[in-house]
């Protein structure tokens, strides 16, 4: 049979907002060419025309399910230029929001994973449980999706009464649910057939390709910015970095489940250790960074987010470079899909947690 070229996306239920040009021999994949850029918004250029505060809501847009983690790197870059020291309570609230966002984003990942292997219950359950954490985030920040909660110098407001009990309830409930997830989704024989040993990315390849985040950790590399270059209060908290040596699609899903466990433990610890006091610095007037340049990194749910910020002392940043984890993981898609079957495309590329909006910026 001759080669068949199929375009998976941009209007395909298994790929939104980007395209994979797939060459097939029968059912076997010969070559995969990713074609990103359908949702490029020019975030970096827009940022040059806005001041430091106006940049907050639109820098969370690339990873909207992950807004606090995206902003974490940005506000730290601005604080690094302005030499600000955030109040302790503000740091703890930042960590809580970041970990809530990690859980929300990981649950979204699991849900779409379910759709891509054809498991409708695996779509509905994580989406339903995600609601508990969205409600919690809404209670703290007032928003349900794009929180815009982190500011240079702290967070927008203090937590209301009752967050602690509610967060503990949600975490206790969800810890039980995670055991059910493992029983029903992760240990399902058909799910294991579809993902175990499929889409292998060896440790050497992962390092050479420069992938980040859960994808890198599923390939057996213990790398996490929260441990390697601790920011905020992550050095005071006790948590693990789950690492798997299986290097396959199943291991990537398992890493996400384990990370949600760790995130809940971080939230509980932060709520317990949190001191009282102010949550933000009182910055009067315009936020204006002194001339200079700064590089800042944070561990978002999909991997490392990096901001490189150059200021010439103006109201607006002179230049901002944003490096997102999805774009760095994109390079692994052709690599791991080669030689697999057509049916493997959606679950395997999604196991990298590739989010086109974030990659295109």
């Amino acid at each position, binding site marked *: 049979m001759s080669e*068949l070229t*199929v375009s998976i996306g941009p209007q*395909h*239920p*298994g790929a939104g907002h980007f395209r994979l040009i797939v060459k097939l021999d029968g*059912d076997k994949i010969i070559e995969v060419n990713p074609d990103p850029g359908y949702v490029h918004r020019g975030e970096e250029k827009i940022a040059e025309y806005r001041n430091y505060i106006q940049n907050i809501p639109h820098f969370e847009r690339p990873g909207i399910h992950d807004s606090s983690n995206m902003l974490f790197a940005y506000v730290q870059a601005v604080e690094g230029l302005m030499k600000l020291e955030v109040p302790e309570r503000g740091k703890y609230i930042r960590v809580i929001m970041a970990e809530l966002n990690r859980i929300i984003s990981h649950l979204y990942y699991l849900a779409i994973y*379910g*759709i*891509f*292997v*054809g*498991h*409708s*219950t*695996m*779509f*509905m*359950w994580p989406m*339903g449980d995600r609601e508990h954490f969205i409600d919690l985030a809404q209670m703290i920040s007032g928003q349900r999706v794009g929180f815009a909660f982190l500011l240079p110098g702290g967070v927008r407001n203090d937590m209301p009464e009752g967050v602690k009990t509610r967060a503990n309830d949600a975490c206790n409930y969800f810890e039980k649910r995670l055991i059910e997830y493992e029983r*029903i989704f992760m240990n*399902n024989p*058909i*799910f294991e*057939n*579809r993902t175990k040993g499929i889409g292998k990315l060896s440790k050497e390849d992962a390092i050479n390709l420069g992938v980040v985040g859960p994808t890198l950790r599923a390939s057996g590399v213990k790398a996490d910015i929260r441990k390697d270059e601790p920011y905020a209060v992550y050095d005071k908290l006790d948590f693990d970095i789950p690492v798997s040596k299986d290097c396959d699609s199943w291991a990537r899903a398992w890493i996400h489940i384990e990370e949600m466990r760790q995130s809940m433990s971080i939230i509980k610890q932060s709520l317990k250790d949190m001191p009282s006091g102010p949550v933000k610095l009182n910055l009067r007037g315009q936020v204006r960074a002194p001339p200079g340049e700064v590089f800042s990194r944070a561990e978002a749910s999909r991997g490392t987010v990096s901001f490189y910020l150059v200021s010439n002392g103006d109201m607006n940043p002179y230049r901002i470079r944003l490096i997102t984890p999805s774009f760095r993981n994109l390079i692994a898609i052709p690599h791991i899909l080669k030689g697999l*079957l*057509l*049916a*493997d*495309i*959606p679950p395997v590329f999604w196991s990298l947690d590739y989010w086109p909006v974030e990659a295109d910026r």
Partner: protein
Amino acid sequence: MSEIRTFPDFLKRLIIVLGGLLILAIIIFGVLIYTVPAISNFNGILLESLSNPIVMLNYLDSLGVGINSLFFKIVVFPGYTWAAIIAAEIIWFERKFLAKMQVRVGPLYAGMIGGILQPIADVSKLIFKELISPSRSDKLIFFTIPLLVNAIGATLLAVLPVSEGWLIMRSEVSMLIVFAVIGFAPITVLLAGWASYSKFPFIGGLRGLHQMIAFEIPMLIAALSVVLLSGSLDLVNIVQAQSNVWFIVLMPIGAIVFFITLLAELERIPFDLPEAESEIVMGYLTEYSSMAFGGIQLGTYIRFYALSGIFTTLFLGGWHGPQFLPAGFEIINQIEWFTIKTLLVMVTIIILRGVNPRFRIDQLLRFSWSRLLILAFLNLFIAIFILQMGWFPFGGGI
């Protein structure tokens, strides 16, 4: 006319439409009564039947459309309308039941009781959609497929023994008819994919062909053991042979094999590869719209009902069950038992949809050829063993 926003609005509109249809029917009937001599005495019978309904039944019988006629059986009761109603309501039940499993609500607004009219609303929507076909598609085949899919489902209904005396057709070789018709199903899937002239439907069609042929052979062998034990190819005789003990008790392996192959033939999850929506959009259904799509779905669900009925017949003892109704109502009792068992089979198939992801084509083929086939043969040997030991009174006739 005002916009339909709530269910009462919908009801009002429905009453207006039905009223219009009634007036139309009265006019047509009035004309017919005075023109066609065969029904010119209808007026008198209509009045008489108000006090004595039997008169009406006898009159319909004399026209050949009565309750005992072949026409009634094909069109209304064990036939197409009955199956279509079951299909529509099983779609509703499936959505509602899956919603319960997935901590959702499911259909809610159409109909008073939990959106029970949702299938009707869906079909009304589909009817009003534009009928589109790809410009380079083979139009004749493309639009024949919905009819063919329906025909396959409906033909299976013809030999389905819902009760001992009340079935559309009894044949010496009804089992062979069933398998001949099932064997035609992959051709419709392939043709639908081919006639669409589109890449994803074509891949879906090929997948369907591979899958159904791979699963047909274990299915046939599992059914063969039933034929061996009952000693007949007639489905009615097969049910009669199970009056004491059901075949699922004698041959649990065969029942499991047949059930799994049933899932594959029906393209249900975990075997819904020909229409895997995340991989190949909607498979061979991708290019279908409007009632062409609706027709295929209806035909598929009628086949779902028919094949569940075949499973009931072969392994669950068909119409057999305790007699609840007084003597003289045996047929109704049998129909009731058959329907209950068939619905239970359908519910089991729906539960599997809630807890399983989808197979991949190579795993599926390996599963069929290397596992199911061996189990089917094993079951065949068990059947022969039971037969040779003389533990089962029927059989040996072939």
